[in-house]
């Protein structure tokens, strides 16, 4: 059964749950809400506070609570808080915050979507994200998605059961349970929310709303501290703690020895993953005998995911071994399966040692 036109739901209660829908931004436009008002008018103070709350909730709880909408005025407030939240994270412009915020919005919407058992919402979302969808003629709770639509939204999901090779693919269609499809939609929602962030917000506007952004920045620092030994975002760059394989490749590059493509990929992805900038990585290749800045930049940007939006993760120990890039394995190597884990672990050990030494 091919799904054609689905009537779009435009009632505010519905849009409040999914504020990233095209219909939601149309609603805000149609309500005549002006940017200036949203930024500074007294009448929008509640919308602004709610916008800030969205971002704070994203940091504190990794999700966003959806209020029960009881009247149209409340719906307007809730709906306009979404664009304001986007302005807030854009003014701060921190990549970690943007990802965390987008993920929380997507997660919140996903929770509601999972509770909704109607098929209408499935149709509506597929239409919204341009996903070609058929229903399985044999099983009610299964959908068939064109493989190219499936791939658009699943390459970010790490689990191996999401790889296309482990999927039921027949005649170009991937068979999914309804729950699985809703998970795919979460990715689509995340992409949509993250799209265009950070927005180009004029400096004066960011200045006007500084009270709001300052509060968020404080919260962001708190979250960072708590995550300090978990996330890669805040890792210090300490070459002494690099795993032996990465050290060896870097040593060769420094010495001007030609390094294989696979090894270059590994070291580039590793350094980008721990937070070096593209320029810093390019500088490392300057000693290379065949250095070509434009070419190198193109490749580094590719690995950083500038074009696809998705950075590559450094290869695992198993992959490093396969391509003969695993050298000088030590006792930490025995305990880890990934060069990044090695680095994290060594940093942590070092940190603890220092703390012990200086009471």
């Amino acid at each position, binding site marked *: 059964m091919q799904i054609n036109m689905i009537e779009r739901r435009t009632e505010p209660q519905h849009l409040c749950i999914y504020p990233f829908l095209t219909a939601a931004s149309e609603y805000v436009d149609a309500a005549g809400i002006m940017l200036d008002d949203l930024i500074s008018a007294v009448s929008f103070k509640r919308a602004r506070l709610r916008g800030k709350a969205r971002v704070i909730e994203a940091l504190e709880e990794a999700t966003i609570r959806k209020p029960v909408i009881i009247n149209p005025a409340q719906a307007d407030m809730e709906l306009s808080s979404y664009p304001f939240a986007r302005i807030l994270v854009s003014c701060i412009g921190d990549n970690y915050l943007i990802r965390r915020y987008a993920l929380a919005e997507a997660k919140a919407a996903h929770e509601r979507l999972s509770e909704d058992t109607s098929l209408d919402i499935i149709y509506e979302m597929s239409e919204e994200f341009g996903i070609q969808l058929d229903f399985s003629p044999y099983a009610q709770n299964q959908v068939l998605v*064109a*493989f*190219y639509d499936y*791939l*658009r939204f699943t*390459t970010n999901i790490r689990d*191996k*059961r999401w*790889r*296309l*090779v*482990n*999927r*039921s*693919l*027949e*005649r*170009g*269609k991937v*068979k999914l349970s309804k729950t699985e499809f809703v998970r795919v939609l979460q990715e689509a929602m995340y992409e949509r929310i993250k799209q265009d962030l950070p927005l180009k917000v004029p400096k004066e506007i960011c200045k006007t709303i500084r009270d709001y952004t300052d509060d968020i920045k404080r919260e962001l620092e708190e979250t960072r501290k708590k995550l300090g030994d978990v996330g890669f975002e805040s890792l210090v760059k300490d070459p002494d703690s690099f795993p032996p394989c990465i050290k060896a490749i870097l040593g060769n590059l420094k010495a001007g020895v030609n390094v*294989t*493509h*696979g090894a270059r*990929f590994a070291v580039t992805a590793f350094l980008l993953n721990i937070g070096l900038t593209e320029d810093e990585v390019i500088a490392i290749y300057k000693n290379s005998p065949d250095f070509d800045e*434009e*070419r190198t*930049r*193109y490749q580094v940007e*590719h690995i950083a995911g500038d*074009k*696809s939006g*998705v950075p590559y993760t450094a290869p695992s120990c198993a*992959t490093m071994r396969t*391509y003969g890039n695993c050298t000088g394995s030590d006792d930490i190597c025995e305990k880890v399966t990934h060069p990044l884990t090695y680095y994290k672990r060594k940093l942590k050990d070092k940190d603890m040692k220092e703390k012990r030494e200086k009471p």
Partner: protein
Amino acid sequence: MNEKTKRFVRSKFHEYYNTAEIEIPSELWMRELGFVHFDPSYPAKLVMRRHKSFATEGELVKYLRENAPAHAYHSAAVYKYPAADMAKKDWIGADLIFDLDADHVVDETELQKYSYEDLLVLVKKETEKLIDFMLDDFGFHEDDIELVFSGSRGYHIHIQKKEVRMLGSRERREIVDYITATGLDMNSFLTVSGKADSADLRFKPEGWGKLLFKGLIEFLHEIAAMEEEDAIKRVRSAGVQERKKAEELIRITKDKTVMERIERGEIPQFAKSIKWDEIAKAVTNAVRVKSGDRPDEPVTADIKRLIRLPTSLHGKSSLNVKPLKLDTFEDFDPLEDAVVFGDSPVEIRMVRGSAIKMKGERYKLEEGEVASLPECVALYFMCRGAAECV
């Protein structure tokens, strides 16, 4: 290749391009083209002239006629500014391209052992598998698939459908992983039926599950027909090392009732301890496309690469980069059907020994030998760097 030979080969390429009907890539004006000329440094150093673009068919044909390049390529991608530097081209989309070459299919160290003709046969087999994947699993229509002989040791497949144009590198890598069975996990295609502890496993006959299942049944039948010791060896080579486990599996293959159940897609609970996933790995080897892509050198996944221009000539073989039809692919013989030059005699001197079977005739020449050969064979040897003009 000395200057005289180079002039001769180039003049022959000229002759070809003066009359050849060139297949123009779709949306030519948005594509980057690249060429290698028979210039003074050729073939010691190949200078790729990149970032060319042509507004009209006529311009491209004129360029080919004037320059008679040794190699001609077009981008898989379409760009807003095809002639700009890589960073400023503004990528719009890219055809889905597969490049199957003998040196991807055969291990580098083994390459020497095969003759050119044998390699072509091997690559053809992989290409046929890939086409089956595209039709059956990916649901492309025969008309969506453009198959081209590479002019050397392989085949190219171009798919231009608008739905695949927007796929990024990572999405394309998933397609390559699919056809090469990279990251395949058999458990994804097994479902548990019945109570947890005593449950039987069921095969989902979909996607790779179907192929695994088919391979597994064939494997079991093969074992059943063998003598005990041979069967054990075969099972061990498939990854089941313990003799006890191997014997157990062989017993299963001889039990009619159990085999019937397995053929229905059920793996009985008592047989679960056998390392099915090891066997699955072994059976995928016959089905998967052998490394259509090497993980360290993204080919299909590179959305900005250049691919040989169909209907151009390959400067290292003088053969035509020939577009083929799927329904006549089986009968296609590159050393007959992709030969564009004629039979008038050309005198050559071999600079190293070489052999080829062309248009049904076998030619084997020793180093230093001077011979008069049909033009097409002479050009082949010259382009390979095995012969010079006399």
